[in-house]
């Protein structure tokens, strides 16, 4: 059992899902309320990571983060080291990879809030952003929790993007799924079994929480 890889993975998933809350909420807000006619293109782009093979996403991420790309150069001049094959690079890759798993539940729950409530809030003196904070966010708690949990679980189990962008550097970019792959490659089945079982259990628990939370309507539920 490689605890170093385990904690690295948990750290990665926690950072990514926290960042996805801050990035995902504005994107979901825009997707829910924008009336731009080409909005569907953005929706499709956000959903891409769901259908793309992780290797394709990882390949483009590697190009985008590499020293030849503007982003890679900027990062290098800023920090003094390249973005690819680092933990930070892993975070950026995972953000994109898990983006739809946060944005889609967020947007679905924002969209489910009765527009009449927003009209009422406006008549009571709330700007659209204030109404969003005071009405939409509290009524979207289940969607927010779902988005965070799904992106956490999804990041926990990613393999292709991590391998392409991060490589397999112990303590830096070797995540739990790569560790399992390594163990199988070296015929270390019992260790692979332990790690795989742990990952399976964590994923099951997280998903159980998600489905448990969405079991009944929470709009008038026990949260205040």
């Amino acid at each position, binding site marked *: 059992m490689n605890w170093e890889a385990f904690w690295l993975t948990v750290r990665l998933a926690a950072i990514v899902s926290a960042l996805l809350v801050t990035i995902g909420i504005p994107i979901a807000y825009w997707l829910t309320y924008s009336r731009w006619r080409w909005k569907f293109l953005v929706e499709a782009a956000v959903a891409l990571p769901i259908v793309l093979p992780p290797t394709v996403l990882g390949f483009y991420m590697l190009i985008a983060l590499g020293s030849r790309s503007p982003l890679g150069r900027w990062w290098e001049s800023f920090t003094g080291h390249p973005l690819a094959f680092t933990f930070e690079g892993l975070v950026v890759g995972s953000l994109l990879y898990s983006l739809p798993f946060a944005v889609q539940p967020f947007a679905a729950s924002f969209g489910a809030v*009765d527009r*009449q*409530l927003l*009209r*009422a*809030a*406006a*008549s*009571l*003196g*709330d*700007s*659209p952003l*204030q*109404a969003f904070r*005071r*009405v939409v966010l*509290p*009524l979207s708690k289940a969607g927010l929790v779902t988005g965070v949990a799904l992106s956490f679980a999804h990041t926990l189990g990613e393999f292709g993007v991590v391998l392409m962008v991060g490589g397999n550097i112990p303590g830096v970019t070797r995540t739990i799924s790569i560790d399992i792959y390594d163990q199988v490659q070296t015929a270390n089945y019992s260790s692979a079994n332990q790690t795989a079982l742990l990952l399976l259990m964590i994923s099951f628990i997280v998903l159980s929480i998600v489905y448990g939370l969405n079991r009944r309507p929470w*709009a*008038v539920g026990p*949260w*205040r």
Partner: protein
Amino acid sequence: MGGGSVAVKAKKKTKAETKPKTSGATPATAPASSYPISADLEVRIRKRFPNPEGTFNLNVHFRALAGFTILFGASGAGKTTLLDCIAGLTDPDEGRIFVGGEDLYDSEKKCNVAAWKRRIGYVHQDLGLFPHLTVEENVVYGLRALSAAERAARSRDILARFRIERMRDRRPAQISGGERQRVALARALVTEPRALLLDEPLAALDRPTKSSLVNDLRKWNQHYRVPILLVTHNGEEVFALGDEVIMLDTGRIVAQGQPHEVMRVPRLETVAQLSGFENIFDATVVGLHEDRGTMTCRLGTSQPKKDALELETPLVRAEVGSRLRVGVRAGDLLLATEKPRGLSARNILPGTIKNLQQRDVIVAAMVDCNGIEFEVHLTLAARDSLKLGDGKSVWLVAKTHSCHLLGV
């Protein structure tokens, strides 16, 4: 303005109207309590939008003074769209909306104050109570800018005024429809808006609840004196509430004035309207009594006879000699065996019972009054105690307001 415009009407000078205006200087974001109390609302707007029947044209011009102004019209007349324009929730194509000395919208000046800066109270038809907040949290929602102490004081006051203190900690899902309506009204009123828009706030209520809520609203408005625009398609509410009525039809104002002036316009009878009246007669207007708010109609289409039957009915916009129909419900008519005296009802007609029929627990009596037959519904007990039978002479009594006028 096109055909839908109506001359600005400002016949009732109120105290509020004579107050000095602030000539547009009131900042939209001023604290809710510091604005000059009351001022009238003037609306002159056009808006076109597609609807299932093609293009809908809203084209109105009116002025509402402090007090109740009823927006009356069938569904699809444009009432809610008009309120949305005033509240800033949708934009007109052109025109001007002016309240309390400030432009909220002026297409010429390219001025359009955002909905949340307008300080116009709006109670929507479906109320829009926040399901995640308690009654009290809902009520203080619009008081964010006030100090906690001020907020608490205002909330205490309005909760008491609308008799909803008991349920302050409950959520909207846990209170009754009438209570929810009170909460929605309280939530809008507590912000001390400079105009109030009510979109059928009483529609879902039973009669006692409705009238107590109306009383609460009236009391509130005696103090605050702001224009209140109330949408309804219920004629009774018009008389109960209205100081002034604006009748809307397919986006245009077809009449404006006091309820008895506007509402008594005969309308074409429909199957639904007919179904309620057992007695419908052709009639001719023979006299108008504007001072009393009534008129006299002669029944029957035949040539005027000397002793033709006449009924006193509510006044409608009609001329002497014009033809219309009078509908009276059988249950609204009374029978007496002696000529009644000291009665407020204005129509007391002699007649003879032609026929009595028992229908379940109701007795339907056909009464011939000088050649015109009325159907009267009685209880079994009334029939027995008056010893009614075929051929008996009776007096038929009808209140003026039981006589409904229908267009021909």
